[in-house]
C-alpha cells in the first residue's frame, strides 16, 4: 500500500512536470520554423510551418494533442530532423545510462571506501588528505575536469579516445575505454559529495553507545564495522539516489565535451534548435528516471531500516 501511494504521487509529479515543461517551451519567443527554414525564412513559410505542426492551435489543445500523442505515437516526430522521437530516445538513452551508471558505480565504490577510511582515521593524515581531495573535487568545474582528462589521458598519454562512443561491435574494451573519461568526469564531483557525507555519518554512528558496547563486548572489528555501515547507510542511500538523478544533469555538459550521442546531448541540441517535442520528451524521460530513482531509494531505505520513517 505504501509503495502504491509512493508511485501514484510520482505519477502526479510527472504530470505536473509535463504541464510546466510544455508551457515553458511555448513561452520562448522563437518559432522552431526559424531553425528549420533558416534565419531568412519568409513570414508565409513560417506561418505554414506553424500550421503544419499545430503550433498555431490554442496551448491547451496543443498540450492534449501532445500528451495523447506521447502515449499513442511515442512522442511523434522531431521538428528538426523529422525522425520519430521515440526511436531517437531508444538510440540515445542507453548511452547516457551507461555513462551515468558507470559514474555512479565508481562514485559509490570510491566514496564508501574513502569515507569510511577518513572516519576511521579521523583527524589523522589520511583523513586530512581525503578531506582536501574532496574540497578540490567539489571546487573544480566539471567541464574543466573533462577537458583536462582529455588533454592528459587522450592527447599527452594516448590511453583513451578524446571523445565519441565506440560501439560494442568495435569490441567491449574499446567501448569501455570510450566511456571511462566521461564517467570519471561526472564521478569526481559526486565522489567528493558522497565521501564527505559517508565520513560524517560514519563518525556520528561510531560515537553511538551501542558501538562502544559492541567493541567492549569484544566483537570482531569487521562485525562492528558491518553494524556501523548498516546504520550509516540510510542517509547515504537517500543521497546516492538523488545523485543518480543529478548525474543526468551533469551529463548534459559532459556528453557535449566528449561528443557522446546520448540523451543529454540530444536535449541540449534540441534546446538550441527549439525542437519542442524532443525537449519535452527527453526532459520527461529524465524526470521519470529521477522520480524512479528517488522512489527506489525510499524502497531501499525501507528494506534497510524497516523501522525508519520513509513514506
Amino acid at each position, binding site marked *: 500500500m505504501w509503495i502504491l501511494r509512493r508511485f501514484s504521487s510520482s505519477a502526479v509529479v510527472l504530470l505536473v512536470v509535463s504541464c510546466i515543461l510544455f508551457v515553458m517551451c511555448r513561452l520562448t519567443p522563437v518559432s522552431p520554423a526559424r531553425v528549420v527554414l533558416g534565419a531568412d525564412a519568409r513570414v508565409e513559410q513560417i506561418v505554414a510551418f506553424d500550421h503544419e505542426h499545430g503550433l498555431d492551435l490554442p496551448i491547451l489543445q496543443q498540450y492534449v494533442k501532445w500528451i495523447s500523442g506521447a502515449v499513442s505515437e511515442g512522442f511523434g516526430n522531431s521538428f528538426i530532423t523529422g525522425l520519430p522521437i521515440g526511436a531517437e530516445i531508444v538510440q540515445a538513452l542507453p548511452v547516457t545510462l551507461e555513462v551515468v551508471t558507470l559514474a555512479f558505480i565508481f562514485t559509490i565504490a570510491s566514496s564508501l571506501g574513502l569515507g569510511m577510511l577518513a572516519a576511521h582515521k579521523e583527524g589523522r593524515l589520511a583523513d586530512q588528505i581525503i578531506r582536501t581531495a574532496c574540497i578540490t573535487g567539489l571546487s573544480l568545474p566539471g567541464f574543466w575536469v573533462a577537458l583536462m582528462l582529455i588533454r592528459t589521458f587522450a592527447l599527452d*598519454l594516448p590511453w583513451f579516445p578524446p571523445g565519441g562512443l565506440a560501439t560494442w561491435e568495435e569490441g567491449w574494451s574499446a567501448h569501455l575505454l570510450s566511456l571511462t573519461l566521461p564517467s570519471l568526469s561526472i564521478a569526481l564531483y559526486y565522489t567528493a559529495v558522497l565521501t564527505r557525507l559517508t565520513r560524517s555519518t560514519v563518525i556520528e554512528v561510531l560515537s553511538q553507545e551501542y558501538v562502544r558496547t559492541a567493541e567492549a563486548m569484544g566483537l570482531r572489528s569487521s562485525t562492528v564495522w558491518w553494524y556501523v555501515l548498516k546504520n550509516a547507510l540510510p542517509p547515504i542511500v537517500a543521497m546516492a539516489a538523488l545523485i543518480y538523478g543529478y548525474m543526468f544533469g551533469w551529463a548534459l555538459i559532459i556528453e557535449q565535451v566528449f561528443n557522446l550521442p546520448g540523451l543529454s546531448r540530444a536535449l541540449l541540441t534540441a534546446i538550441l534548435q527549439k525542437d519542442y517535442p524532443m525537449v519535452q520528451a527527453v526532459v520527461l524521460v529524465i524526470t521519470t528516471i529521477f522520480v524512479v530513482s528517488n522512489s527506489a531509494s525510499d524502497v531501499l531505505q525501507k528494506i534497510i531500516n524497516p523501522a525508519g520513517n520513509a513514506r
Partner: protein
Amino acid sequence: MSQVNHGRRALVQSIGAASGLLASGASSITFAATTGTLAVAIPSNPSTFDPLNQTNHDAMVVNQLIFENLIEIDGNGNRVPMLAKALPVVSPDGLTYTFELREGVRFQNGQPLTAEDVKYSYEYVLNPANKAYRRDVWTPISSITVEGRLKVKFVLKHPYRAFLDYMTKYMGIFPAGSREKYGPDFFRHTPVGVGTGPGIFVSSKTNDYVELKRNPDYWRRGYPKWEKLLVRIVPEESARLAFLLSDSVQIIGAPSGRDFVRMRSQAGLVGESKLARGSSLFIAGNNRKAPFDDPFFRRAVSLALDRDTICNKVCLGLVEPSATPMPSSSWWCNRAANQSQSFDLAQAKAMLAKSKYAGGASFDLTYSAQSYLIRAADTALFIQSQLGQLGIKVNLKPAELTTVFSQVALGNHQAALLAVVSPAEPTFLSKALFSPTEPFFKAAGYDNPTLAALIASSYKVESRDKLEPVLHRIQDILAADAPIAWIGTLKNTNLWRKNVRGFEVSEATTLRLAEASLA
C-alpha cells in the same frame, strides 16, 4: 539578468581558457581512422540531406557529396562546369541559358543522367506544392526545355545575374520520377542512389555521424580517393580540436579563431583561411527606433568604429575590414565610399553633435552568445568601449543565435551585431537587408526606393563594366546614410592534418571533400 550574463561570460571564458590549455601541447597520434577512411568533424547536424531544403552551411558538406549541380564554384571562387560540359551559352539579352551535359554521367543507382532529369529537378523545385525552402530564388525561370538527350535550355522571365551563382548552392539534380517513387522522407533521411556525386549515403545517426562510401562509377575518374567518408557531428569547439589532434578526424570545420591562430603552425597540422566574399560582420541598428532613426547618429557610430583593430586584433585577422557590404579587396568595392567611413573619432564627434542625440544616447546591442565563425562577445565588448568615447552607452545583450536572428527579422531589436554568410554574389546581402519585400528588411528598416531600385537593377547586368557602376552607386548611398555600420568581411577557416592531400578551404562555409584524401 546581468548576473546571468556574467555567469555565461565567465563560463565561455573558462571554456576558452581550458581549450587553450588543451591546445597548448598535444600532438600524439592514436585512435586513428582506418586506412581509406577520411573522417571530418563539423559543428552541427544536417537537418536534411535533401539539397532543396538546406539551411545549414556546415551540413551542406554531406548533400553536396551526394548530389551535384550543372556548375559549381571552385576553390578560387570561379564558376566552373560540373554536370555540364562547359559553362552555358547565354543569349545576348541574358534570358536564355543553354547547357550541354557531360557524356557518361550516371546516378549512383546506375541510371544515366539526361536533360530530362535536369528539367524534372528544376520543375520539382518550382512547383509550389513541393514547398522547397529556396523556391524563391528559382522563380525567375520561365521555362525549361529539353533540346536533346544531353542539352537543356532555361528561359528566364527577366535578366537574372545571380541565376548561375544560386545554381551552385541551392540545388541538386536527381533522377526524373524519383520524388514520386521514393517520397520526401527518402530524400530527407536516406537518399541512396539518387545523386551523381562522389559519395553514396550509407547511414547516419543524429548527433553522432553520417557515413558515405565511395561512388565507384563517379564520372571524375580516380575520385574520390577515400573509400569511406565519416562526417562526425562535434558541436563543441575544443572537442573538435581534440578529435583533430588525436587523429580521430583529419579535417575540422569552423575551428574557433583562437584555436585556428594557435594551431595553424603546429607541427603536423595545416590551417588556412579564405575570404567568404558573400559574408559580412556588421551592426544592424534599427532605423525605425531611436537613436538609429537619425542618419547623423548612424554615421557617427560608423566613423567611431576602428575596423582595423576590430578585424585584426579582436577578431584575430579572421575578418577583412570593410565599411561597405562588399569586401574591400574585391572589385565590387567602392574605395571612396569605403574610405569615407574610415575610423575618425573627431569626425564622429562632429556627426554626433549634428544629430538629435548630441548629448549622448544609449542602446542595447544584441549579439550571439554562441561562438560561431567569430566570438561576437569580444567584438561587442570592444564596440562598447569605442562608442563610450563618443558618450554613447552600449548595453550588451547576449542571446542564443536563433533568438538573435529571429528578433532581428521581426524588427524587435534596437541594434544587433551580426555575422552573416551568404552566396558569393555582390548584392545578395544588400537585397536581403534593403529590399522591402525581403524577410530581413526589418534588420535595418531602411526604406530607400532609389537603393532598392538600384539593387534590383544590379540583377539585370552581368558584365563587370556594367555591374561595377551600379555597385558603386549602391555603396555611395550606404556610406552617405549609414543604415548599417559595416565592420568587415568574414574569412572561412579550416584546420587539417598534414597527411591530408587535395583539400582546400572553400569560399562557402562548407568543406570540399571530393578531392581530399589521406597520404
